[in-house]
């Protein structure tokens, strides 16, 4: 198999589009959540300004090598996840670096950034960071279980581990989507999705704007800016997986934007309605509600 060098600039173009889309989308969803609270919310371009400001700070300090590598791991988790799954189905240009067994790699990449972050935040030595990391890892681990079960169910259903093939099998109308053909797997996957989007009721890890901000407590300037970049890319990359596995993929950028927005809105709507779970509550919730659905999806496929 020969490697085509044109794939590199094409993948970078995908990355660029997704970064900008992610920055605007997260701001838009924050605005929508603010409207639910009768506020105006941040300006739509606020994420760009925050990024620019954080890159433009004049000082930064380090706590050691892992502290440097934490945000780098986090970002490579997001970028890797995006680059190894096909973004636009049927487009040679935006199929990125996907290959036959990419589904397993994608599952790995979803977890990768969290682990890197745990090491980096652990080295910062701040107790809030350590608490945040232990909360985050336990919650992500519990949320990962139903996703893994749903993915296995989908892989069994289509007899393949290639995301491209799974998308191909779902073409030809809504009736062919996994949403219709294997609804239990989709429900398990979406339960897991709620848990991994860092929105209420599963946002105790970051607990935004309260005393413990969690793992990034000690991160600032460029380190924080790297993590903000990832916060724009990673959710979109994750939703690309969901879109490809469950909702028929996207054959154009317009379809991509619409589907990603709607998938994001699932967690945003749940987030503005439900209050926050404590960690042990959320783990119990995943084990009692999401995992049995995932097991049923595997048994009934």
């Amino acid at each position, binding site marked *: 198999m020969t490697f085509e060098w044109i794939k590199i600039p094409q993948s970078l173009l995908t990355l660029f589009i997704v970064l900008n889309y992610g920055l605007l989308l997260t701001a838009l969803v924050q605005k929508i959540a*603010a409207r639910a*609270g*009768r*506020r*105006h*919310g*941040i*300006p739509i371009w*606020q994420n760009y*300004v*925050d990024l*620019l*400001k954080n890159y*433009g*700070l*004049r*000082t*930064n*300090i*380090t*706590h050691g090598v892992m502290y440097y590598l934490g945000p780098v791991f986090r970002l490579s988790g997001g970028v890797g996840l995006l680059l190894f799954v096909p973004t636009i189905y049927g487009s040679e240009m935006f199929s990125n670096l996907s290959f036959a067994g990419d589904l397993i790699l994608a599952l790995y990449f979803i977890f990768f950034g969290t682990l890197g972050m745990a090491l980096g935040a652990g080295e910062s030595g701040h107790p*809030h960071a350590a608490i945040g990391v232990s909360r985050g890892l336990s919650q992500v681990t519990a949320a990962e279980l139903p996703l893994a079960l749903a993915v296995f169910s989908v892989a069994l259903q289509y007899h393949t581990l290639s995301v491209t093939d799974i998308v191909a099998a779902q073409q030809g109308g809504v009736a062919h989507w996994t949403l219709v053909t294997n609804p239990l797997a989709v429900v398990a996957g979406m339960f897991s999705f709620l848990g991994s989007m860092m929105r209420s009721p599963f946002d105790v890890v970051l607990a935004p*704007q*309260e*005393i*413990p*901000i969690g793992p*990034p*407590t*000690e*991160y*600032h*300037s460029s380190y*924080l800016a790297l993590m903000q970049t990832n916060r724009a890319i990673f959710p979109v990359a994750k939703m690309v997986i969901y879109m490809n596995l469950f909702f028929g993929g996207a054959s154009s950028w317009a379809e991509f934007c619409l589907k990603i927005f709607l998938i994001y809105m699932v967690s945003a709507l749940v987030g503005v309605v439900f209050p926050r779970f404590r960690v042990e509550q959320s783990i119990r919730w995943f084990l009692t509600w999401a995992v049995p659905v995932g097991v049923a999806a595997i048994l009934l496929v």
Partner: protein
Amino acid sequence: MQQDDVVEPRVPVKDELKKRTVKGPDGFEFEVDPIHDYYCDARPEVRPGSYLKIVEDLFNWARSESLWILGFGTGCGAIEMRPLMTPRFDAYRYGIQWRPTPRQANLFVISGYLSVKTLKRVIRSYEQMQNPKYVVGLGSCTVNGGMYWDSYNTIKKLDEYLPVDVYVTGCMPRPEALLAGFEELKRIIRAGKGEGANLYAKNFDWYKANQKRVIHDWDMPDYNW
């Protein structure tokens, strides 16, 4: 302003803060110095802006449009910041957000009177913020002591201890006044005059002497990031 009277701490250092040798569970002996900062105890330096004026102007614009406030209410004025987060005033519209850690914040709102005990924590928090950083004094207490002018335990002029960019006077000022103060701060930053961090670094000895004159139990590093 006398500078020569007090530098020595008048209160003895607490036992748990003294330098000592500790024996670990594996029998390994090591030295612990709680007051020493292991990461950075170097003096702050004046950090010039970007070499190109157009780049620095762009950064200044971004800094002015992305003010992250340290969520640290020092006095009664902290109650005036809550309406700013909620629908009535909604400061998020203006790019103002609250951060729970000094590392990520770049605006310190000293909300009202500052007792000497709190001043200690304020100084540590301020020094942990990254350059450039800004200070807004909220309420008359930060200007001249306000109604606490003859208190035995509060500082009178905030400007002697930290470089203040904007004062918002009143007792208490309404949230609107605070918003107007933030807009004024934005103008100052965009004009390239929000250089409090560099001012602090330049006049570091003067600020430290002032701080140590009122804080008698100085049991922390002289500068810690």
